C-alpha cells in the first residue's frame, strides 16, 4: 500500500511537471503556426490595382513639371497696419502656378528654366483702395523667372553651371550664417513657399572635384536684394512711429547725442534754430528716398569661394565671399538707401554619431554701414545646432546663434539702424510623419533674445497627401511682440492659413 501511494505520488509530480513544461511549448508552437499562417491569409483589399498604375512611356529628352496651388490666410486679430489699412479677416487668397522645363542636352549637359506667377484676389475682395500703392505693387501679383541655367561637365573633374540659380552653403535649417549668397523673399514671413524663399541669382558656378574635396567658385554679376513687405503692410514695421516728429522730442534727441551722431541728427532734421520741419522729408513718403541699386555686371558683382571636404561621419567647409548687404542702410549724404559692400570669411561642419547630427557655422563679416556712424563695422556670427533622428518618423532640430557687432556705438540702436550689439537667435523645428507618410506635422519656433524678449514667431502646420501629388495644408502663424523693432506690434499679425497644391 505504501509503495503504491509513493509511486502514485511520483506519477502525479512527473505528470504535473510535464504539464507545466510542455503545455507552454505546445501553445507557443500553436502561436508560431498561427503567425506563419499569416502568409496564406487573404489580402482582400490590398491587391495592387494594376489598371490605375501609369504605364511606362517613352523616355523623352525634355520634361515639363509644375504645381498649381490655391491658398489663403486670415488674420486672427482685428488690427490696422501703421498706415491705417484694416488688416482684419482675409489677408491672402492667392492662386499660383509654377512651372519647370528641363531639357537633356548632348554629352550629359542639361538646360532648365523655371518660374512662377501668382495673383492674390484678397486685395480686390477687400477693396483695392484700402491698400497703399506699395502694398499692391509688392503683394497683389508677381511673376518671377527663377532657376534658369545650363549645366554640365567641362572636364571629368570640373563642372559648370551658368545662369540663374540658388546656392545654399548653410547647414542650418532656419538661421542664416553662411547662407549669404541668395537674397530672400521676406514679403510674408512664415508664409513664403520654401522653394521660393531664396531668390535665384544669375551667376557662373565652377566646381572642381578631387576625392573628398570640392572647390566651388561663384561669380555673381546679377544684383538683386531681399524682397521686403510693402510699405503700409501690417508686416512692415512702423518706421515712422520711431521717428520723433515733435520739435521738443527732436531737440531732446539731438542734444542727447554726442560726437558724430549729434552732427548727423542735426543734418537729418535740418536742425538749425528756428527749427523748421519743412526741410525734413516725410518719413512715410519713401518715394522721395530711393534705393540705390548697382547695375548688373558692374562694380556690384559678387564673388565667392567654398572649399568642402566630405568624410565618413563628418564634413567641413571654408567660405570666403565679397558681396552686397541684402539689407539697406540710409545714407543721409546721398539721400538714398544703399547696400554696403561686405566681405566674409567663415566655415562650418557637420558631425554624426548614432542618431545625432551636430552642426556648426561661424562667419566673420566686415563692411557693415549704419546711418548713425560713418565707421564701418564688423560682425561675428556663430551657430551651433543638433538634429535627432532616433525616434521613428520624427525629426528634431535645435539651433542657436549669436551675432556680435564689434566697436558698437549706442546710437546704432536708434531708428533707421535698430541694431543691437549682441543678438541671440534660436530655432526649434519638430517634424512628425504619420500614416505611412501621408500626414505631416511641423512645428517651427524662432526666437530673438535669450528669453525671446526681442520677439518670436511660431508656425504650426499639418499637411495631408490626399493622393499622389495632391496635398492640403493648414496651420497657424503666431507672432509674439518683442523689444526688437522688427517685432514691435507683431503680436497682432497672427494668422490662420490653409491651402491646396497639385503637382504635375
Amino acid at each position: 500500500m505504501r509503495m503504491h501511494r509513493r509511486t502514485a505520488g511520483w506519477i502525479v509530480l512527473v505528470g504535473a511537471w510535464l504539464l507545466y513544461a510542455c503545455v507552454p511549448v505546445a501553445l507557443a508552437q500553436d502561436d508560431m503556426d498561427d503567425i506563419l499562417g499569416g502568409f496564406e491569409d487573404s489580402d482582400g483589399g490590398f491587391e495592387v490595382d494594376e489598371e490605375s498604375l501609369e504605364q511606362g512611356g517613352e523616355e523623352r529628352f525634355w520634361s515639363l513639371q509644375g504645381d498649381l496651388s490655391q491658398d489663403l490666410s486670415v488674420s486672427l486679430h482685428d488690427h490696422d497696419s501703421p498706415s491705417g489699412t484694416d488688416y482684419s479677416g482675409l489677408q491672402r487668397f492667392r492662386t499660383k502656378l509654377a512651372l519647370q522645363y528641363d531639357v537633356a542636352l548632348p554629352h550629359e549637359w542639361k538646360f532648365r528654366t523655371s518660374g512662377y506667377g501668382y495673383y492674390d484676389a484678397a486685395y480686390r475682395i477687400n477693396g483695392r483702395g484700402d491698400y497703399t500703392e506699395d502694398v499692391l505693387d509688392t503683394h497683389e501679383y508677381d511673376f518671377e523667372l527663377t532657376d534658369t541655367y545650363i549645366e554640365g561637365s567641362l572636364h571629368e573633374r570640373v563642372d559648370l553651371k551658368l545662369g540663374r540659380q540658388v546656392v545654399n552653403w548653410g547647414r542650418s535649417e532656419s538661421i542664416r550664417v553662411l547662407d549669404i549668397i541668395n537674397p530672400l523673399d521676406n514679403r510674408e514671413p512664415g508664409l513664403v513657399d520654401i522653394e521660393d524663399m531664396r531668390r535665384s541669382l544669375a551667376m557662373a558656378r565652377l566646381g572642381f572635384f578631387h576625392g573628398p574635396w570640392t572647390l566651388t567658385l561663384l561669380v555673381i554679376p546679377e544684383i538683386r536684394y531681399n524682397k521686403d513687405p510693402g510699405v503700409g503692410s501690417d508686416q512692415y514695421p512702423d518706421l515712422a512711429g520711431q521717428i520723433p516728429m515733435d520739435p521738443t522730442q527732436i531737440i531732446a534727441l539731438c542734444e542727447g547725442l554726442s560726437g558724430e551722431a549729434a552732427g548727423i541728427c542735426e543734418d537729418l532734421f535740418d536742425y538749425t534754430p528756428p527749427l523748421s520741419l519743412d526741410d525734413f522729408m516725410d518719413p512715410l513718403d519713401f518715394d522721395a528716398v530711393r534705393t540705390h541699386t548697382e547695375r548688373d555686371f558692374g562694380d556690384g558683382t559678387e564673388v565667392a569661394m567654398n572649399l568642402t571636404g566630405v568624410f565618413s561621419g563628418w564634413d567641413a567647409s571654408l567660405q570666403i565671399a565679397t558681396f552686397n548687404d541684402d539689407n539697406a542702410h540710409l545714407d543721409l549724404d546721398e539721400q538714398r538707401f544703399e547696400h554696403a559692400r561686405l566681405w566674409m570669411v567663415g566655415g562650418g561642419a557637420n558631425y554624426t554619431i548614432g542618431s545625432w547630427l551636430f552642426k556648426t557655422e561661424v562667419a566673420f563679416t566686415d563692411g557693415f554701414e549704419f546711418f548713425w556712424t560713418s565707421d564701418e563695422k564688423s560682425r561675428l556670427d556663430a551657430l551651433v545646432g543638433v538634429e535627432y533622428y532616433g525616434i521613428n518618423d520624427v525629426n528634431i532640430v535645435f539651433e542657436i546663434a549669436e551675432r556680435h557687432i564689434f566697436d558698437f556705438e549706442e546710437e546704432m540702436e536708434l531708428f533707421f539702424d535698430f541694431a543691437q550689439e549682441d543678438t541671440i537667435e534660436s530655432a526649434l523645428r519638430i517634424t512628425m510623419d504619420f500614416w505611412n507618410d501621408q500626414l505631416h506635422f511641423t512645428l517651427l519656433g524662432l526666437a530673438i533674445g535669450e528669453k525671446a524678449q526681442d520677439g518670436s514667431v511660431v508656425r504650426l502646420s499639418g499637411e495631408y497627401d490626399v493622393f499622389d501629388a495632391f496635398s492640403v495644408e493648414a496651420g497657424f502663424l503666431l507672432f509674439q511682440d518683442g523689444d526688437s523693432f522688427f517685432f514691435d506690434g507683431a503680436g497682432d499679425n497672427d494668422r490662420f492659413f490653409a491651402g491646396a497644391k497639385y503637382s504635375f
Partner: protein
Amino acid sequence: MNLHRVLCSCLGFIVVSIGQVPVADAEELSARDIIQKVKDRDDGDDQVSDMEMILIDKRGKQRVRKMRSFGKDFGEDDYGLLFFLTPADVKDTGFLTYDYDDDARDDDQWLYLPALKKTKRIAAGDKSGSFMGSDFSYADMSPRPVDAYNHTLMKETEVNGHPVWQIESIPKDKEEIDESGYTKSVVFVRKDNFVVVRSVGWLKKGKRLRYMEIHELEQIDGIWTALEISMTTKKGKNTLHKTVIKTSNVKYNQDVDADDFTIRKLEKGL
C-alpha cells in the same frame, strides 16, 4: 531579419546572386552557416534598375513612387544612389548611402531636397524607421551583422514547391533590437540558391508583424533577381498596410562609375 540580399536586389543597392552555389545538405550547414551564405552570395559588382513602389493602406488607397537606383560594391562596403522619378512632388529627390561592412561604423547618408536645392547629411544610427512611408525600414535595406543574432534551424519545409530552411533569428542584445526594430524574425531560405523568399519579423513596438514575400524571382544575367516583393504590416490577422515593389530594367556589371556615388552626382541628378 536580414532582408538585405532580397530587398537590395529590388532597391538596386545589392543583387541576389545564385553564382554556382551548390545545394547544401542540412546536416553540413548550421543555421548560422546558412545565414552567412545568404550574406556572402556573389551579387555582381554593380547594378542599375528601375523600381515602382506601391503603398496600399487599409482603405485600398494606392500611392505610387517610381525610382531609379544604382548600386556598387566598394570592397566590402556597398554604396547606393536612388532618385525619385514620380510623383511630381518628390521628383528629383535623391538619396545617397554608404553602407559600411564594419558594424562599429555608422553608415553615411545624404538626402538631396529639390525644394531647398540643397544636400542634407542625415544621421543613420536608427534604422528602424520607415523608408519613404513604406513598410520597408532602413534596416530592411542594409545587411545586419550575422553574429549579432542567435540563429536556430527550425525545420525544413517548402515554399511554392521549393525546399527551404526555416530559420529563427533573435538579436543577441538590446542595441540590435533598437537599431533594427525587430525582436525576432523567421526567414525561409531556398536551398537551391540561398534566397530568402519569405520572412516574418516581430516589431518591437505595437505587437505588430511584418511579412515579406517574393512573388516573382527570375534569373537575369545569371543572377537571381526578385522582380516583385511585398512587405505587409499586420496586427494579429488584420493587415494595416502593404507595400509592393516591382523591379524592372535590371542590368548588372555595367561598370557604373565610382564617381556616380558622390554628392556631386546626387545634386546633378539623372
